[in-house]
């Protein structure tokens, strides 16, 4: 009997505790008001609504055009646009500046920020604020698109950032991170900016499923940013492709690099990178697929290089890079280089230009493949020799050199080339 009462007591007490907790939760939600902003509402101005809002409020902006600039969000609120309201900064200043934690800005069209050479005017700027979400916005004709500074754990999702500037000097970056940690950039579309996505001093960030095209300089640009991941992105028709510079431990997975054409155009430019991994990417129709300059311990595995001018340019200042199980198909030059001494390894790649045989049927060629041709070395030294591309003379020279190598780097070879394409 005693036990029975004890059980009843504990049941009642736990129920009461739960109710107190629920009441608390509900009252907090009741305290969080929804503040509408529209032409006929109490608030006709977004800034005024923010000024009168309390922490946790939701400001719902109805559709319409709001001629406001430098909207300051300095308390934890959600700013939600309903039916794509337009914020037109009329080229006076920035769009929205966020300086509080846990803010959400979603569903806006932000247009016409100022353009200047002293200040980096942004469509949406997040400054020293954590857990900020910027989603489903469209930015048009903004100098910089979305800028995160000194922020942690933010999210940039489903935004469209469309620049309307005509040249590199008058245009800023689409998405820029400066000294950030743990920002997720997903499903965005960036075009006609200087750099599509730009990272500086930012770590542990994820760039996923974005499309960056027709930017004046790089589709993606990393500087001094370690331990970042980018995967399933598409970079095409950018001025110079994607550049990763002065960073460590970058993972580049399953991205598509297409049609980065031009006088000095790279699909992927690696400058002073170490310990990166490049897996499962497609490099198609680029002037230069991957340029490795001063890059060490890079793991390049199961990538597809197709129809590029140069699939890989491996500079002599690189060490311990490994190329494993990649497919090289229909590139004008597979690998090109500028020195003679190499500490990089090629193994089990498929080369469509390989002419060896496989007697023991282990699907590996029995003679090593030398991906650097004599002609590619000549072109490296005398660019004008490009005029002799696919000339009979050059073909004869290349064949002779492959049989008896004397000028091409002896160590740079694939000892076990694949006879069939690798699965990617």
């Amino acid at each position, binding site marked *: 009997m005693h036990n029975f009462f004890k059980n009843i007591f504990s049941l009642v007490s736990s129920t009461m505790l739960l109710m107190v907790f629920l009441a608390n939760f509900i009252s907090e939600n009741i305290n969080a008001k929804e503040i509408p902003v529209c032409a006929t509402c109490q608030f006709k101005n977004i800034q005024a609504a923010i000024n009168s809002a309390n922490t946790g409020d939701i400001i719902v902006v109805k559709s319409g055009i709001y001629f406001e600039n430098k909207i300051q969000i300095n308390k934890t609120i959600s700013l939600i646009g309903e039916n794509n309201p337009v914020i037109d900064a009329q080229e006076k200043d920035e769009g929205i500046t966020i300086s509080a934690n846990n803010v959400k800005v979603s569903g806006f069209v932000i247009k016409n920020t100022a353009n200047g050479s002293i200040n980096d005017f942004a469509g949406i700027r997040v400054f020293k604020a954590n857990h900020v979400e910027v989603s489903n916005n469209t930015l048009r004709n903004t100098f910089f698109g979305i800028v995160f500074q000194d922020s942690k754990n933010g999210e940039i999702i489903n935004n469209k950032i469309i620049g309307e500037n005509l040249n590199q000097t008058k245009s800023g970056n689409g998405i820029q991170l400066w000294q950030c940690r743990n920002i997720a950039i997903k499903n965005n579309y960036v075009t006609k900016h200087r750099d599509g996505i730009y990272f500086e001093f930012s770590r542990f960030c994820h760039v996923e499923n974005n499309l960056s095209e027709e930017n004046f300089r790089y589709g993606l640009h990393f500087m001094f940013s370690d331990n970042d991941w980018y995967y399933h992105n598409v970079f095409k028709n950018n001025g110079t492709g994607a550049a990763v510079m002065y960073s460590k431990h970058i993972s580049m997975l399953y991205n598509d690099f297409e049609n980065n054409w031009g006088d000095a155009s790279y699909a992927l430019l690696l400058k002073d990178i170490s310990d990166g991994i490049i897996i499962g990417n497609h490099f198609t129709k680029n002037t230069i697929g991957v340029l490795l300059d001063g890059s060490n311990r890079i793991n390049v595995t199961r990538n597809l290089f197709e129809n*590029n001018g140069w699939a890989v340019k491996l500079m002599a200042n690189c060490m311990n890079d490994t190329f494993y199980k990649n497919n090289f198909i229909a590139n004008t030059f597979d690998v090109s280089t500028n020195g003679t001494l190499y500490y990089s390894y090629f193994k089990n790649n498929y080369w469509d230009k390989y002419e060896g045989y496989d007697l023991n049927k282990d699907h590996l060629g029995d003679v090593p493949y030398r991906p650097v041709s004599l002609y590619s070395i000549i072109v490296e030294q005398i660019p*004008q020799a*490009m005029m002799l591309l696919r000339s009979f*003379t050059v073909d004869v020279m290349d064949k002779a050199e492959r049989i008896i190598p004397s000028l091409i780097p002896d160590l740079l070879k694939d000892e076990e080339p694949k006879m069939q394409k690798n699965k990617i």
Partner: protein
Amino acid sequence: MLKLIKYVVYDILRNRILLGYTLLLLTVSLSLFNLEDDAAKATLSLTNLILIIIPLVSIIFSTIHFYNSYEFIELLVAQPLNRRTILLSQYFGVSISLFTAFFVGIGIPVLLYNASSTGLILLLSGMLLTQIFVSIAFWASVVTRDKAKGIGLSLMIWFYFSLIYDGLILFFLFSFNDFPLEKPILALTCLNPVDLGRILILLKMDISALMGFTGALYKDFFGSAFGLIFSIVVMSIWIIIPMLFAIRIFNRKNL
């Protein structure tokens, strides 16, 4: 003249070498297109064929044909006919037959499998190269009466344009590496019809490599409509000039 051309064509059709040549081209191009799953890659292999085999066959066939019909030409000279007409009818007869062989052997497969701008440029260069090497062959044949010498000269000319010339250019590039060579190289390209044909095709095919820093100049020049017309004009000059020389020599020649 039409009548003469008709006789020349009949004569060529009667010996089966031309038929064999057509069949060879047809077999090679059809098997290339069927073996390679990528039509662009087959077109690339065809490029090598067009740049090497077509000039060789054109020049050798025309030279041999000229010497073989030497007696017929002598007979015609005895008739009240202009010497220019005689040579031109020979020229057109050979051209038409080789042209037909090329069109059937390579033109039809290309049009069937890869009728892109690359394919069309390929055909254009092939046709022009055929004409150019027939012209050069006629010039080489009227220069000397000796058949062996004539064929030797033709072979040397083919060898020079396909192999030696590019080697010389490479040597030139190495020697004058310190100078701005872009313009001279453009000029040098025009001095070899095979190179012109090759660059025309390449600009359509290896465009990504040529678009690089090094190829920008060629792209700018040959890639434009002006460049295309320019190279066609230069190649036409390569057809006309040797033929004019040939007619000049033939007119004054003591047969």
